């Protein structure tokens, strides 16, 4: 699990695009849009983690390929228990006004645990990588490239240079 950043490279472009399509479509219905994903505030971080865990779990059931499902399972390993604990505490924190501080302290205790914090961070990082909006373009809407611009000229070079190599 510590090697999660290198493990994420195991996902192919099509796998990422498949997961991405689900994540980007589901995100607007969660709390993620209202929160800053890299927040270190214990309550917000817990909320983010719970939400991400929930979405990735749903995504695991959604993907077609079994290999992708297995990869997602590896990412989600061990995070379910933490999520269940945190979800309860966050729920209580939101529900009650009296004794709120106690729940906040309990959440902070969990999050400040080094091992648990690493797991939480890893899951959040993986989610961000998988959900980074890959801007796929529709070929029907593309006629060519503006080669007069610097970026365009580089793109054309790469298209045509490769062609000559063939």
């Amino acid at each position: 699990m510590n090697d999660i950043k290198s493990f994420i490279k195991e996902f192919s472009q099509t796998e990422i695009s498949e997961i991405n399509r689900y994540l980007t479509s589901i995100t607007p219905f969660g709390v993620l849009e209202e929160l800053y994903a890299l927040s270190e505030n214990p309550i917000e971080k817990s909320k983010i983690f719970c939400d991400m865990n929930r979405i990735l779990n749903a995504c695991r059931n959604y993907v077609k390929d079994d290999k992708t499902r297995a990869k997602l399972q590896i990412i989600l390993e061990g995070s379910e228990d933490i999520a269940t604990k945190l979800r309860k505490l966050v729920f209580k924190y939101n529900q009650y006004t009296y004794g709120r501080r106690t729940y906040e302290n309990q959440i902070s205790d969990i999050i400040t645990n080094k091992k648990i914090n690493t797991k939480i961070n890893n899951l959040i990082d993986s989610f961000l990588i998988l959900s980074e909006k890959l801007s796929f373009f529709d070929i029907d809407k593309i006629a060519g490239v503006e080669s007069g611009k610097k970026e365009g000229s580089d793109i054309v070079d790469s298209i045509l240079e490769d062609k000559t190599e063939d």
Partner: protein
Amino acid sequence: MKKNFKVNPIKSALLRNMPPLSGSIYAFGKIKSGKTTLLLNVSQSYHDNQGYKIVDMFGGLRKEQNYWCLPSNDLDYWERVKKILNIDPKVQVPKQYKVNLLYPLFINELPDKLPTNPGFVKSKIFTIPLKDIELNDIKCTINGTGNNTTYLLEELKNNLGKKDGGAFIYNKVKDMESEKQVIWKNFFKPLIEEQLLQSEVCGYNLDVKKEMKDRETITVLCLDFCPAKFQLLIIEWFMKKVKELLDAGDIPIKNIFLFREVSEFFRVTAVTEDRIVFFKDLLSTWMRYARWGIHVMADCQSQNEVRGVVEGQSDLTFLGRVAGTSRRDRNEIKDSLGSSGKMTTKQIDDLSNLRSGEFYLIENYKDARKVYLLLPKTRYWREGDGSFFNLWTKIVDKWEDISADKEEVLKKFMEEKELLEEERKAKEREKEEKRQRNRSKGGRPAKKEIIEEKEEEDNNVDKEENIDYIEEENNENKNKQLTNDIDEEDWV
């Protein structure tokens, strides 16, 4: 709060939305500059993205129009482009379009088998109703048309019924004794014998409205088996029908018509035939009234060749690689675009350095900008491909047998022709019998008979006089020879 947006470099460099058309599109460039691929790519972009109907009218001498039927075989290229441009991997590229191949019926020229690919490619043979033929059609076929042509055409059309086809015209012309007229010999006779001209109710007549309303399918006019002198007629007739439909508001106005090597018609640097000059005027008119819904997309090697003809109607102009040695071409561009500030001198100088597929795009009022056009999603003509039919045999090899259709049309024509000939002969026989009956009764012969008899007598007299005259001439010649002989003997 300040927000920083990360700009996607690919997104900013893509040539995405082509402007909605109000005029025509032209592509200029020397050989291998990528004109063919440009025409296909831009028209595919308009078709896929903006719902334009594509009609491929003229494929040039290389018959490039047929290549719509085959998806591109540049698989490596598209794989690379997909990666570099971050294109949705789920989209199907190369693409197999739905294509209708329209073959005008020239019964002696058309082969028995035409290409087909169920679900995608469909070959159709078509005929033209005689009622549609107008003077303009004839002018696109025959070089000189006079009053006789106009008269005969009107006379034939006035007597033409709904069910009357080529056989009727055949007999009518014989009745009118107009078999020696140019319009008959060079226009009606060959076209009727080839079965292209049919009655209004013939099932093979092309339903242009239906064809134009099918927006998804690419319509390709195949003139592969059409004799060269009738090609303009077919194009003119099709465009005429489209114009009629547009005028009536029966079809949408987003239509693109592809013409390759348009200098065939627009050549201003050489003297061409009357019919081509006439067609050039028509094509120019269609382009001028592009907002009707006829957007012509044309390519040509040199702007100099079509100078002054197309400049006014252009909406999008693509300038490809110009030969470094062609001072005339560069001067032409300098004259038209450099003088108005649309192109800088640096850009004009750069024209000879453009790579294949790179063009300067001049869009309406905007200044020229350099663009690279991707390859088309379909196949396109390449050296070494040979004829399209060979390629089709190699790749798809599915054919539609049209011999039964040909036989049916021919059989119907022959039956009608025989029937009408019998009727004509019967009428003549009746007339003859009437004449004889009148004579046997001792009745006064009809006026016509008197005239005919007189003419016969006159002819006989003329013949006799001629014989006398010839005999006199012969005698004179003989006398002259004799005197000459005597003179020569004296000299000796």
